């Protein structure tokens, strides 16, 4: 089945540690890729997106993600996390054509300890 996979459901880090959250998708063809973040008690909000061009995209709050087409991956990275990065992170894929439905991964809960 076509899907979006996030490899880690829970990640615990100390402040200043580096972060990488994996995301793989199984769709062929042209896709748009997203990372959304949900801070405790807040709305789901867009962290960054990739539509075309440079496969390394930078988002808000020092996050970046790299699209590797050959690996069907769009991993999220941050060199040094902060306590305020504690949140749930969702990878999402939009397939071009048709009704442009956004398909989400299962999410990764990140806890950053001071």
């Amino acid at each position, binding site marked *: 089945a076509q899907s*979006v996979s*996030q490899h880690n459901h829970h990640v615990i880090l100390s402040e200043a540690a580096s972060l990488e959250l994996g995301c793989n998708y199984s769709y062929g063809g042209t896709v748009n890729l997203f990372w959304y973040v949900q801070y405790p008690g807040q709305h789901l909000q*867009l962290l960054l997106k990739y*539509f075309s061009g440079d496969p390394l995209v930078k988002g808000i709050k020092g996050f970046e993600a790299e699209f590797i087409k050959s690996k069907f991956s769009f991993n999220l990275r941050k060199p040094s996390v902060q306590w305020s990065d504690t949140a749930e992170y*969702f990878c*999402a894929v939009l397939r071009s054509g048709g*009704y442009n*439905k*956004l398909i989400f991964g299962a*999410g990764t809960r990140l806890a950053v300890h001071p």
Partner: protein
Amino acid sequence: DVKVTQSSRYLVKRTGEKVFLECVQDMDHENMFWYRQDPGLGLRLIYFSYDVKMKEKGDIPEGYSVSREKKERFSLILESASTNQTSMYLCASRVSGANVLTFGAGSRLTVL
């Protein structure tokens, strides 16, 4: 900023009750969506609407229906609530042809 407002943040209902979840957006967006969010499952699309009076089934429409009588309002209806519909429900909207969704704060429904 676009605002997507879900009128009820927390609801508790009994099995068999009819439940209405309301969503209103204030930026004249054509497309609106209802997702449910469950731990370990992420967000799953229930229904979406591309314009007034238009609706399409998402990936998990069973047990739900929707209504889009006005452009700004998209309602999710549980005709007869069941305990397995206990979840967080998220509404989202976007301009037609755009790729970025704006989400509401969510409605947490508990069915007893």
